[in-house]
């Protein structure tokens, strides 16, 4: 029975040794690899952030030269976005989606493994540039030409890293779509899907539509550099701004690719710990879909200052403001879910509540920057640095953290150390605000982003911000401690784990069997989502 892994026998016959991981076709093992990879990248990218904050601790250059500083900002962003957040989201999807929809595994298990294994190689390619003549990419993660065309030997490595990441993401997204559309257990209709699954359907569509455009854009840059094309050069009839249009056509959906899975996670956690069904399930689904759909029509709000014609600037302003409506609906639904619930405050719940507040603050500043005339002042200052870190750190990353704490007992079969978890939360939640809130002031006061040194008038808030940064960075080590402790042992987790948990994943044992649902469960209205 060499091919019989999926057959009706219930005993787990896990492959053993290193081959279990290298050749895996198991959604849980692949999910675990994604999550571990994301954690490693989170610390590498975080170390780069520490270099940045150390240099900005006080005016004057103390530690690194400006070129290296630019390499750090560029690599920090690339690693955090493509190495930490996206793989973390895919890792959670891998672990949870088959369990949530009652499937034995992902639809295309071998391709699943390829999606993962491309990633470490892609980042070897990218990180190797740090040791090259001329150093790593230093033109910003947005890679605008002509600046990025000035890169030395790192240039083709950067482009091909993007290609690899694109292949990985597209294969992963295809797999998720095939899984959700085709692998649902009987009775698991679309409107019974857990919200996390819904956000991932939409994220996967965003990936498939956006990543190829990005691949095309960087390919044009490659030929501009090496084969004398003129896509991004006015001298040949092209336009450097064309790259920005293509980039942000990808880039704006990309930010929703990062945040939507976090929306999904929070939508699972709030009902669990409020012991109350999610408020407005249908409107949550439609709002998410609306946000994703609109994300393809607002890209140029990232580039108001390039000097578009008036009609263009007005259109992109209105379209951007429109996104505030479905986003607001989501926030209101979450709060209505809490309303008249019976709340307890375990670590996943704490991270989720902080997510709502701090993500909303990021949303407010996002709305402010959507207003074109004032964006002319905010653009490319620390104000936007504060904005996107609010939506990505206490937004997306807190969402992922919440998910990790929420599902860790299910994955390992043990409860994590709640005290350490709460320490991790409180230290993170306080320091993240110390880190990023002052950056609003810096930006408004006129400090541009991506500079290694600044006038002394910006010194105080930079110092506060750096202190917050160091505390935040160190606090994340607690997560590692919690996870390792939890994997090694601890109080045995029940199948349901949390008192208020509903859904198929909580009907499986903790830890779940190697193949999740070998016989599909029958789903009814009562056993569906919470």
């Amino acid at each position, binding site marked *: 029975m060499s091919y019989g892994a999926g057959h009706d026998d219930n005993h787990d016959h896990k492959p053993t040794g290193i081959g279990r991981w290298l050749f895996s076709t198991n959604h849980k093992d692949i999910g675990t690899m994604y999550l571990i990879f994301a954690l490693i990248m989170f610390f590498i990218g975080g170390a780069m952030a520490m270099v940045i904050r150390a240099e900005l601790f006080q*005016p*004057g250059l*103390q530690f690194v030269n400006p*070129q290296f500083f*630019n390499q750090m900002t560029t690599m920090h962003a690339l690693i955090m976005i493509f190495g930490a957040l996206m793989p973390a989201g895919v890792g959670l999807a891998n672990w949870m989606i088959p369990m949530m929809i009652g499937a034995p595994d992902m639809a295309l298990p071998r391709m699943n493994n390829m999606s993962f294994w491309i990633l470490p190689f892609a980042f070897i390619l990218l990180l190797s540039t740090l040791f090259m003549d*001329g*150093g790593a990419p*230093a033109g910003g993660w947005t890679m*605008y030409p*002509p*600046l990025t065309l000035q890169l*030395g*030997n790192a240039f083709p490595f950067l482009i091909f890293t993007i290609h690899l990441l694109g292949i990985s993401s597209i294969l992963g997204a295809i797999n998720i779509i095939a899984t959700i559309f085709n692998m649902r257990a009987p009775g698991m209709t679309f409107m019974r899907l857990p919200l996390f699954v819904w956000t991932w359907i939409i994220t996967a569509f965003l990936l498939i539509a956006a990543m190829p455009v990005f691949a095309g854009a960087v390919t044009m840059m490659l030929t501009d550099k090496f084969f004398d094309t003129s896509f991004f050069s006015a001298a040949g009839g092209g336009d*450097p701004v064309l790259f920005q249009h293509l980039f942000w056509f990808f880039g704006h959906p990309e930010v929703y690719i990062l945040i939507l899975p976090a929306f999904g996670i929070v939508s699972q956690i709030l009902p669990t710990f409020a*012991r109350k069904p999610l*408020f*407005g*399930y249908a*409107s949550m689904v439609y709002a998410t879909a609306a946000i994703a759909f609109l994300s393809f029509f607002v890209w140029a709000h990232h580039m108001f*200052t*390039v*000097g578009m014609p008036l009609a263009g600037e*007005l259109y992109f302003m*209105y379209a951007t*403001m*429109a996104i505030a*409506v479905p986003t*607001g*609906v989501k*926030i209101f639904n979450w*709060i*209505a879910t*809490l*309303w*008249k619930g*019976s*709340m*307890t405050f375990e670590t996943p719940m704490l991270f989720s*509540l902080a997510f709502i*507040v701090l993500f909303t603050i990021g949303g*407010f500043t996002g709305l*402010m920057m959507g207003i074109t*005339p*004032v964006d*002319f*002042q905010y653009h490319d200052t620390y104000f936007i640095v504060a904005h996107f870190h609010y939506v990505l750190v206490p937004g997306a990353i807190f969402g992922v953290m919440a998910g990790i704490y929420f599902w860790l007992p299910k994955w390992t079969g043990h409860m994590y150390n709640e005290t350490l978890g709460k320490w991790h939360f409180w230290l993170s939640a306080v320091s993240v*605000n*110390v880190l990023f*809130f002052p950056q609003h002031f810096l930006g*408004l*006061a*006129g400090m*541009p*982003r*991506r*500079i290694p*040194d600044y006038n*002394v008038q910006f010194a105080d808030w930079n110092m506060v911000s750096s*202190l917050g940064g160091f*505390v935040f960075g160190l606090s994340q080590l607690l997560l590692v401690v919690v996870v390792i402790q939890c994997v090694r042992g601890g109080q045995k987790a029940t199948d349901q784990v949390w008192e208020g948990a509903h859904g198929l994943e909580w009907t499986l044992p903790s830890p779940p069997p190697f193949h999740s649902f070998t016989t599909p469960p029958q789903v009814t209205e009562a056993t569906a989502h919470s």
Partner: protein
Amino acid sequence: MSVNKLKQTVLAVIAVSLFLASGTALADYALNLTEGVTPTSHRVYELHMIILYIVTAIGVVVFGVMGWSIFHHRKSKGAVAHQFHHSTMTEIIWTTVPILILIGMAVPATKTLIFMKQTGDAEMTIKVTGYQWKWKYDYLDEGISFFSALHQDSNEARQIDSGIDPNTIENYLLEVDKPLVLPVETKIRILITAADVIHAWWVPDLGWKRDAIPGFINDNWTYIKEPGVYRGQCAELCGKDHGYMPIVLNAVSKEEYAAWVEEQKAEQIEAASGSDREWSMDELMEKGKTVYAANCASCHLPEGQGIEGLFPALNGGAIVNGPVSEHVNIVLNGKNMMPVFKAQLNDVDIAAAITYERNSWDNSTGDVIQPSVVKIAR
């Protein structure tokens, strides 16, 4: 993680929130957007404040409700979970109300944007060109043209391990060798472009920034109400020294401006005559040292060491110690990241820099390059 540190951070957060909460602090330049000195910047500031107040109000309501719920609807207080999960009317309300608020914001925003686009009937026009890493200003009506780069004091202090405390430098990183001079109470058209990579020209007090795109002109205008010195910086990552290309705008009365224009014209005539006379080695070396520091040292480094893989070393370099014609050619016409200096420097400057490079550090070719040689090679 000590409890003390936690307390400190908590205190810091409280301090931050207090600053934000106090209306007076919001008017402080260090915390909030500048009101600026142009009609545009006033409108932008007002718009900024309106939206800030609206989102703050929304935040208070939303977080208030949430906080109330978190406080009261907790299990430890004996709260029993209700099981409602739907209310069409509420959902319609919280979809419609935001739409109305957004429309309320969009109206003034649209008006301001249209106002900012009225570049016509300007009384004078200047062209701003971004270079790595300095600005060039062309007064198109007057024929005046000059570069504006980071001031020497800041430039020395900003070097890594310079040993100079930035606090001792006046306007550290926000001072230039030659500021842009503009008249007040004049509608000025500002055309922005770049020579190499994308930069962004930003003086907060004017109320906007605009990208400088190589090969394209971006069209803007300003009308400065009050005389004064207004400072800004490049706002688009443009490479290694992106943080070191400030903008200083000296707004003066119309009379002072007219006098300044005359002065500049005279200076330019004088400078143009320099290339016709014979220069001595010492003169060239002395001038070359300053030209080198201002134009070459940021990449090839002050001692000509260069950076491996990016910028070739000049100390002992092949071109610097090779034939003069090739050396002149690469300085004039550039190559890869090397700028086209014939567009930036005059014959005397180029001759001086080349002479300096060929006779400094370990280089001792003994060559004296006359400005006339450069003039012919152009």
